[in-house]
C-alpha cells in the first residue's frame, strides 16, 4: 500500500487533521482506541496488512509516517 492510501484512511476518520505533518496522535489523544481499531480493521480488510496486538503501541500510531513505516515492515516480512 502507499502512503497516500494510508492518508485516505486517516482522513476518513478525522477530515480536519493534517496527517502529513501531525505528530503525537496518540499522546495528544487525537486518535482514540476506537480509531486505532478502525484503522487496523481497514488495513486488514482492504490491504491485507495484518497488525497484531503487539504492534498497537503509541510509537507506531503517533504519526502517519510511523504507522506507514510499520506497515512497510510488516509487508516486507
Amino acid at each position, binding site marked *: 500500500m502507499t502512503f497516500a492510501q494510508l492518508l485516505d484512511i486517516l482522513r476518513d476518520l478525522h477530515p480536519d487533521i493534517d496527517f502529513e505533518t501531525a505528530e503525537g496522535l496518540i499522546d495528544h489523544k487525537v486518535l482514540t*482506541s*476506537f480509531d486505532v*481499531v478502525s484503522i*487496523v*480493521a481497514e488495513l486488514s*480488510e482492504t490491504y491485507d496488512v*495484518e497488525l497484531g*496486538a*503487539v504492534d498497537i503501541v503509541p510509537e507506531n500510531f503517533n504519526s502517519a509516517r510511523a504507522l506507514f513505516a510499520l506497515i512497510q515492515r510488516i509487508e516486507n516480512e
Partner: protein
Amino acid sequence: MTFLSSGFLLLVGALLITYYVLPKRFRYLALLAGSVVFYALAGRAYLPFLTITVVTIYGAARLLGRSLEKQKAYVAAHKTELTKEALGAYKKGEGRRRTAIFLVCLLINLGLLGALKYTGFLLSAFRAPWEVHWVLPLGISFYTFQSVGYLIDVKRGKYPPEKNFLRYALFASFFPQMIQGPISRYDMLSKTLYEGADFDMDRLGRGLVRIAWGAAKKLIVADRLAPALGLLFGAEAGNYRGSWVFLGMVLYALRLYADFTGGIDMALGVGELFGVILPENFDRPYLSKNIEEYWTRWHMTMGGWFRDYVFYPLNVSKPFLKWTKRLRTKFGDSFLSRLPLYTATLITWLATGVWHGAGWNYALWGLTNGVVIILSLTLKPLYDRFHRRFPSLKEKKAYGAFEILRTFLLMCLIRLWDCYQGPGGVWRAFSSLFTVFNGDAALSGLDALGLSLSAWVIVLCMAALMLFVSLQKGDGSFRTRYLNTPARLWTIAGLLLLLCLLLGAYGPGYTASDFIYGQF
C-alpha cells in the same frame, strides 16, 4: 494496614533510613524487605498467595524468554539453509510451547484471583446450600493484573524477562502500590525501581508534599463525607429519594475522587521518597467533555491495562477481523458492520466491572459504561453534523462547560450502581430523580446527615482548593509552577500537614476509613 496508620508511617521512616544508609546496589533489597514486612503486617495469611503469583509469573516469564531467545538463535543459524516454510513450522512449534506455558500460568493466577474473589458470590447467586468465607489478600486484583501484564509483554517479546528473582519480586510487590494501585508496567517502573536513588532533600520535599496533599484529600473530604453517604446509601436509603439521590450522587463523586486520588497521591509520594516514579493514574477526569475522554483520564493504569491486554487483542484477533470483513461486505459501513467492535467493547467493560468486585452491580456498572460508549459512538455522525451546522459553538467557553457538566452528571448516574443494592434499588433511586421533587427538604435537612455546618464549609473549601489545583494543571503542573524552590516545598508540606491535623476527620473514637478502591 493503610497509608494513614502509625504502623505505615513507622515502616516508611525506618525504610528511608535503611535505604539511604545502604550502598546503592543493595537499596532495592531494602524496598523488597519493606514490601514483605508491609504485606505481612497487612495480613500474614496473604503472603502465600502473593508468593504463588511471584514464583509462577517469574518462572513462566523466564521460560518464555528462553524460548524466544532459542527461536531467535535457531532462525539466525538456519536462515540460509532452511526454507521459509521450515522456519515457519519451527516458529509455530515454539510458539505453541510458549502459549501452553502462558496459559497454564494465566490459569493459576486468574484462577486464584477468581476463586478467592468470586466463589462466595457465585455460590450465593446460584443458591448453593453452603457458604465460603475465604481470605481476600490485600491488592490481589492490582498485583495479579500488574504481573499478568508483565507476562503478556514478555510473551509478546516487548522486553526480556527479569532474570534476578529478587528484583522481579520487588516489581510485583512494591508496597506503595499494594493498597489500590496504580497498576505499573515493568518497562516503565524498572527505570527507577532498582536505581538506588541518591539522597535529595528537594525530592524528599516533593514526595512529602504529594503525601500530605493526598492525606488532606482523604482526611478532609473523603472521610468527612463518609458518614453522610453512609446514611444516604445505607439501610435507610429508601427514606432519601429525589433531591437526596442527586445530592448523594454528587457527594459520592466528590468522595470517590478525594479518596482514590488521595490514595494514589500518597502512593506516588511514598515512591518519590525513594526516587521511584510510579505512573500517574488521573488527569483531571471531572473536566472531561465526553465519556470516552473520561475513561482516558480516570484510573488510567487500569483503563490502559484493559485496552492493551483485552480490547485491542480481541479486536485484532483473526475471528474478529474476519467477522468485521463479513459484515462489511454484507451491510457496508452501517451500524451492523460495527457489531464486532461493539461486542469487544461490551466484553472489555464487563471484565472491567467484574474486576472491581463480585456482584451483579459491578457487572451491570461495567455494561452500562460499555452501552453508553457504544451509544456515543453510534450517535457521533449526528453530533458531527450538528457541529458542522453550528461551527462556532465548540469555541464557546459556555458550551465547553456544558459538555463537562453533562459528562460529570452522566458518570454520577452510572455510579448509582456503586451506591445502591441491586438493580431494584438503583432503579428506585434513579426514577425518583424525575418523580420526587423535594429540593427544599434536602437543603434544610443537610444537618441531619451527621455533618455540622462548619464541617460542610470545610469540605466545600477543600473541594474548591482541589478544583483550583486541577485548573492550574492546564498550564503545566501545579508543582512545577509553584513548588519550585526548597523553601516553598517544605513550607507547603508543613502547611498541608497542619491542615490535615486541624481539619481532618480523626480524633478519639475515630478509625481511618479504608480506601474505597482498596476493596477491589
